[in-house]
């Protein structure tokens, strides 16, 4: 009987992890020439002194490293397969570095590896809730003499411990059969069930974006979202409370919008893309007022192959390689100089980013989680 409890727990955990980022088959954005110029943040890292160009060339041309084996952990599925084809396999061909892979990236696993001193993961792909300054005891500072930090999209919350590797968007998707020809222009229409009737899908996670979307629907400009006005957001959420259908996983969101059970949903753009292009459902994405976010590469503190890990992260970040996954999935590059797959450009979050797009303030969200989550639970239970 105990084992069933544990199983329920594990299953649960798997879903939570699946939701937290890559599980979504979400999409990422391509760097756009219209994107705001990256302001190289004043570097706190002792290392970032070399010129960007030197970093770039070293990053794209890693030395031979025969005999090195790196572990790479991500979220599995088509997502990790795209990373494998775009980065791991070419890197092995170029340098001789071999990879062992895990498909169950988890912040908690990193923490337990570091705490127990049994660090077996070298490079880990994590969601936007991790790799912040508060996690400094768990992660190695990245080597920004190798990794081309100056070229990375500065809106994506780069820290000393994490560098974004792919971008995706949290967007509004709608089922054209259910909206009867009407096109929701943004989140105000999501919150207006008189104008366009039907259920609304939402991720059941306090920091998944619903508070932000409620505020944008209420007229808050993307740049003014933080600090979150939770009272105002909750009031807005209350206006459609009876029409909200929660989803727990990317797969579920794809199914809800594809089947038309909801007329609109918040969704990771990769899942919206799959509903339309893989499932062939009448689903469209409204890019207006999207939240652009990313997955990140980190190196657990005490990684036995720390130096080799830095070289690999630099390779995956460099302009020539960073957009590689967009050959296979609608996840875009984080390096502003990297060119995404032309066939996928229209479906990437970054390509569709404009002045109406928002970005998660991950540091703020990390610091205020308890308050934000309590407001979310209170709203659900009220």
């Amino acid at each position, binding site marked *: *009987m*105990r084992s*069933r*409890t544990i*199983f*329920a*727990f594990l*299953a*649960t*955990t798997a*879903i*939570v*992890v699946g939701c*937290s980022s890559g599980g979504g088959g979400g999409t990422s954005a391509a760097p756009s020439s219209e994107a705001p110029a990256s302001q190289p943040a004043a570097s706190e890292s002792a290392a970032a002194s070399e010129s960007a160009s030197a970093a770039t060339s070293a990053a794209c041309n890693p030395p031979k490293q025969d005999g090195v084996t790196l572990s790479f952990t991500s979220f599995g599925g088509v997502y990790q397969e795209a990373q494998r084809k775009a980065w791991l396999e070419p890197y092995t061909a170029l340098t001789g570095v071999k990879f062992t892979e895990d498909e169950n990236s*988890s*912040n*908690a696993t990193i*923490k337990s590896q570091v705490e127990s001193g049994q660090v077996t993961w070298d490079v880990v792909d994590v969601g936007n*809730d991790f790799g912040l300054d508060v*996690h400094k005891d*768990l992660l190695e500072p990245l080597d920004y003499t190798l990794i081309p930090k100056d070229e990375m999209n500065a809106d994506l919350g780069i820290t000393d411990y994490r560098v974004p590797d792919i971008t995706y968007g949290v967007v509004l998707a709608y089922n054209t059969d259910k909206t009867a020809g009407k096109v929701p222009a943004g989140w105000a229409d999501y919150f207006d069930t008189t104008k366009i009737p039907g*259920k609304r899908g939402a991720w*059941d996670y306090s920091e998944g974006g619903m508070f932000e979307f409620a505020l944008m629907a209420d007229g808050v400009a993307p740049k003014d979202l933080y600090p979150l006005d939770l009272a105002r957001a909750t009031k807005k959420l209350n206006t459609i*409370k009876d029409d*909200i*259908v*929660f989803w*727990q996983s990317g797969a*579920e969101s794809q199914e809800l919008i594809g*089947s*038309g*059970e909801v007329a609109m949903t918040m969704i990771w753009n990769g899942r919206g893309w799959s509903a339309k292009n893989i499932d062939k459902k009448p689903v469209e994405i409204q890019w207006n007022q999207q939240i652009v976010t990313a997955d990140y590469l980190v190196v657990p503190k005490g990684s036995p192959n720390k130096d080799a890990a830095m070289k690999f992260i630099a390779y995956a970040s460099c302009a020539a390689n960073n957009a590689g996954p967009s050959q296979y999935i609608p996840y875009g590059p984080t390096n502003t100089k990297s060119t995404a797959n032309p066939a996928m450009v229209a479906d990437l979050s970054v390509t569709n980013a404009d002045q109406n797009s928002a970005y998660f303030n991950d540091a703020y969200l990390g610091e205020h*989680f*308890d308050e934000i*989550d*309590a*407001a979310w*639970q*209170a709203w*659900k*239970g009220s």
Partner: protein
Amino acid sequence: MTTADEARSRTWPSLVGGRPRVNRWSVLALPAVVFLVAVFLIPLLAMTLRSVNDPPGAGLSNYQQFFTQGAYVRVLTNTFWIALLATVSCLVIGYPFAYLMTIVSGRVAGLLLIAVLLPFWSSLLVRTFAWQVLLRDTGVINRILLDLGVISEPLTLIRTTLGVILGMSHILLPFMVLPIYAVMRRIDPEFSRAAANLGASPATAFLRIFVPLSLPGVLAGCLLVFVLALGFYITPALLGGLKDQMISQLIVQQIQQRLDWGFGTAMGVLLVAITLAFLFAASRAVRLQDVFGSGIGED
């Protein structure tokens, strides 16, 4: 047979209320004890320590943090409410089912047993998703009813407490049926016949003889289902509405994403402590070794 069983249960040493004499065969329990201590007791202690010492010197601050969040406390009470509903639902379905198993022929009883166990062997997630397919607005049940013209608007089946109880009962039913059946099939039919001889109607014989004799199985089943139900949250999350929240979800969130293991373990300890309190209360009402011994060990 009944008397033999009773004699046996009286001579066997037991942890609670049994005779102090130590049976030398008890050494066979050593691996199980070592196993429980290593993988259950020690981690539980470590967890408890962590809940009062993370961040260092935390004391009871993690617990304070929990109880100052009204919304979290509500989720905790809701967890017990849902577990209670699931237990009642399993009992209502499981008791007649177990009774049916005892009165039909051996072959039919075997089929009924398989019917209970079959879904038990498939994954919890698969079964929960199957319920989604059945219950949702565009799902099987609503489709059929709409096509038949019975209803004109889809019934709200999913994302309700009803949906949660359906899904959880399906998963937990074997834990109710098996202990009850194990007890029921050892109830000597002669008792009911004797009651009839003494003038009792079948209903009276059933209510005053059979039901009381089956109570240890009922209690075992209820306790098992209730305790297991407390740890659920996937099923409520997938089949329930906004209010059908369970504490495990908050725990996973803290452990897995927030990495606030002090707060996460504090919630875990609370859940374990309250569960133990329930078991303790139950032990006042009935001897637990009777419940678990007769309920599970025999079949």
